[in-house]
């Protein structure tokens, strides 16, 4: 194909995109959303005190600001993407467009490009506003140096979290299961899978439990602080078998390259820090450790010694019971990644909205999109419910319902707001995963479906 033809194609694609943006902007609905955000965001930055602390205020603002922007832009995307094509078909402008030298898939691509561009511009503007307001809140709040130092460490940062390697307990679980089976003690009302899952959980907890006078060692690889001398944070939560009288656990923590002890090193290359602490149970605590505790190969060990004085088994709950956090990137880059995760949602919704409006009228299409959006926002609950409801459906479930359900977006699983609030790192691999699953697979399948339908459908109305 000649370059001239390519250029012509791009020109017509761009014409459709530009027209879609003009339609959205002149439809007024976009304007209403823009005004809402322009008014609400600064108001929120001033009016939301959070828990009274500077950190609380920042967390509340970022959480609500990003949440609101996300919600409004998602709704705007749904409205614009379903309206733009459905109205072209209903109002028959499509007659004059499709009789021009533009292929139908190009027309759809132009529409998608328009909606996505509009989204990206609005997202960039509003995230810019949120970012600007967020970084200026500490200065405006008149907080002391110490508090500002605190939020710099705990909020204006992007901390990577490393969970300890989970010990493989499958062998032990299998043995236990077989033993129970032989003894006929398996609960009859539970499915084998559920029993196995419960046994696994019990065994894993056992590995994270320390009886009085014993110690637990967690080893971490690939601890790579943003700057070598940055501090690292050990974040933990105690659970106990018997509540201590003062609800406190006394513990000795050792953090550093523990291999130096094990293999009897002649001299210590990196320091091992020791902390004697008293912490309230069932609450998160953080131990701040100087960054030089990490070995040059990224190795770090965290040791907890349960002092006999406690007289109770100390358990670190599964999941977030114990993590090592370190500053891996700047707040700014983390914020940009959070915005890109929102962008992925918007792109999905834009593709989905246009795709369904290739064969549904505007009211039905918008309703479908809204249902999918809200379902996707609580996908975990929906998936679990479906799993539960469809027990015994067998192949029909696996081959018919499951593939359709799998196309549902899982917005709640990719929620960047939580990460911003807890200053957790959003990794590039996470972003890649979000784009890969949500855009390259799910949105692409739905999009191709829409393109195929639109290519072969009759766009004119039946009038006789």
């Amino acid at each position: 194909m000649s370059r001239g033809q390519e250029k012509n194609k791009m020109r017509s694609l761009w014409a459709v995109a530009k027209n879609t943006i003009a339609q959205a902007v002149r439809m007024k609905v976009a304007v209403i959303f823009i005004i809402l955000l322009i008014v609400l965001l600064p108001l929120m930055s001033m009016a939301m005190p959070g828990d009274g602390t500077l950190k609380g205020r920042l967390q509340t603002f970022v959480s609500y600001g990003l949440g609101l922007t996300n919600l409004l832009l998602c709704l705007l995307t749904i409205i614009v993407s379903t309206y733009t094509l459905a109205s072209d078909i209903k109002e028959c402008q499509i007659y004059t467009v499709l009789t021009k030298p533009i292929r139908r898939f190009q027309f759809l691509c132009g529409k998608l490009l328009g909606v996505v561009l509009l989204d990206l511009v609005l997202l960039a503007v509003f995230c810019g506003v949120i970012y600007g307001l967020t970084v200026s809140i500490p200065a405006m709040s008149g907080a002391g140096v110490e508090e500002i130092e605190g939020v710099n460490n705990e909020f204006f940062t992007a901390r990577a979290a490393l969970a300890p390697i989970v010990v493989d307990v499958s062998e032990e679980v299998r043995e236990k299961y077989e033993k129970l089976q032989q003894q006929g003690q398996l609960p009859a009302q539970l499915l084998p899978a559920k029993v196995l899952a419960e046994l696994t959980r019990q065994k894993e907890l056992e590995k994270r439990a320390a009886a009085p006078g014993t110690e637990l060692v967690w080893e971490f690889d690939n601890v790579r602080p943003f700057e070598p001398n940055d501090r690292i944070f050990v974040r933990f939560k105690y659970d106990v078998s018997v509540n201590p009288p003062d609800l406190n656990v006394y513990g000795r923590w050792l953090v550093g390259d523990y291999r130096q002890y094990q293999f009897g090193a002649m001299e210590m290359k990196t320091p091992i820090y020791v902390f004697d602490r008293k912490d309230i149970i069932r609450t998160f605590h953080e131990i701040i450790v100087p960054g030089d505790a990490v070995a040059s190969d990224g190795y770090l060990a965290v040791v907890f010694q349960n002092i006999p004085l406690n007289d109770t088994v100390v358990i670190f709950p599964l999941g977030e019971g114990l993590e090592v956090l370190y500053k891996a990137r700047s707040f700014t880059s983390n914020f940009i990644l959070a915005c890109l995760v929102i962008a992925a949602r918007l792109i999905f919704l834009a593709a989905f909205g246009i795709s369904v409006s290739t064969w549904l009228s505007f009211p039905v299409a918008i309703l479908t999109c809204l249902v999918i959006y809200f379902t996707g926002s609580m996908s975990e609950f929906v998936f679990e419910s479906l799993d539960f409801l469809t027990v015994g459906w067998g192949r029909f479930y696996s081959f018919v319902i499951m593939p359709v359900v799998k196309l549902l977006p899982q917005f709640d699983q990719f929620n960047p707001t939580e990460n911003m609030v807890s200053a957790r790192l959003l990794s590039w691999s996470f972003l890649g995963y979000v784009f890969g699953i949500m855009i390259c697979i799910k949105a692409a399948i739905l999009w191709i479906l829409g393109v195929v339908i639109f290519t072969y459908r009759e766009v004119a109305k039946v009038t006789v």
Partner: protein
Amino acid sequence: MVNRNLQSESTDSQYAIETFTLTKIFTDWWGRNKVVAVDNLDLKVRYNEVFGLLGPNGSGKTTTIKLLLSLLHPTKGRALVLGGDSREPKITARIGFLPEESYLYRYLSARETLDFYGRLFGLNAKLRKMRIEALLEMVGLQAMAHRAVGTFSKGMARRIGLAQALINDPELLILDEPTTGLDPIGTRQIKDLIKQLADRGKTVLLCSHLLADVEDVCDRIAILYGGRLQSQGRVAALLERADKKQITTGALSADAIEKIKRVVQAEAGQCEITSPMERLETFFVRIVTEAEKQAQPTSGAVISKSMGFLAAKSAESILDKLVAPEGVIHSKPDGAKRNMKVPGPSPGAAHGLEEVRDIKPVQDEEVLRSLTDAVEPTSRPVRKKETKPPTVPDVEPEQAGKSILEELSEATENGSEESLRRDSDAGGPDDEPRTGEKQDA
């Protein structure tokens, strides 16, 4: 363009539009046949002709057009447009289409609308700008170029719709009810435009149920009823009445009239001489133009401007502008035929004289010509030419329609070229006012 036209004229196998047993049946939700909208249609439109698709409401005209443009899929048969599939961009790039209503984006201004369609054709910025200005001038909406199309009246929207159909300088123009919503002047302008486009070698498919429009501009027509082709052929051949003759002259003295009557009576016997009636369209245009000349205030469309889109020389230059980039300016494959004028009294005027008419005062004709005539030089005070007797007498509209249909259904397609009279078509308004009188026995 020229070569193809000439080629297509010579080989009858190449058509601008060709359908093969084209059928469209609308089914209901259960797949049961509901309506046969188009029934085994074999339509053939030659290159470089103005083809009229006629029929009452619901006869399948618009459905046929939608099928031609692939907006609907045929149930059976197929359609070739410009020798190919109308979904192919290389084919659609050569088509201009005005749908039955001007389906435009309400939020775009007139200029933005044309720019949008220009971009769809991949026209570069310079060419686009030039054509947009030319077209806005042509449809007389330059002053309203920045107004949103949604605020336009139906007629104004129609003009923009027509402009968008012309932005690519199409070889084939498909017009579905182009004159609906237009005032008589706008209607006249569109008809004149169609004639001029035909002169430039374009093919026009005109779909209408307004018989007067079709009769004025079409070379060939087809009549649809119930989705079936009832009759098709050359307009002139279908409407010609060989058993009658009509002669038009300037003002004559009573003495001369007596002499003519005697000659005719000696020859054939029956003859009636009256002053011809002016056509209502011509009369309307004249009155409104006079009002405009007196600068009478109006909140409606300004005639001088709206007339501008086809007025005399400007129309010529606008069309030139539209065509110029492709390097073809005055290509008229059969221009000689189309622009043929009958300069004076025909040699055979004395024979078969049945009717002698009075010509309206010269100034009326000149006003009209200044508004719509693109080709004809203006000063020709009295012209005599032979005209065929009107086949559609100005009786009651229903009667007229009926008689045409009756005659058409009786007629068969006649391919004779010589019966085509483009002399009156090309000039449009320099056409003499038709007599409304039917000759007496």
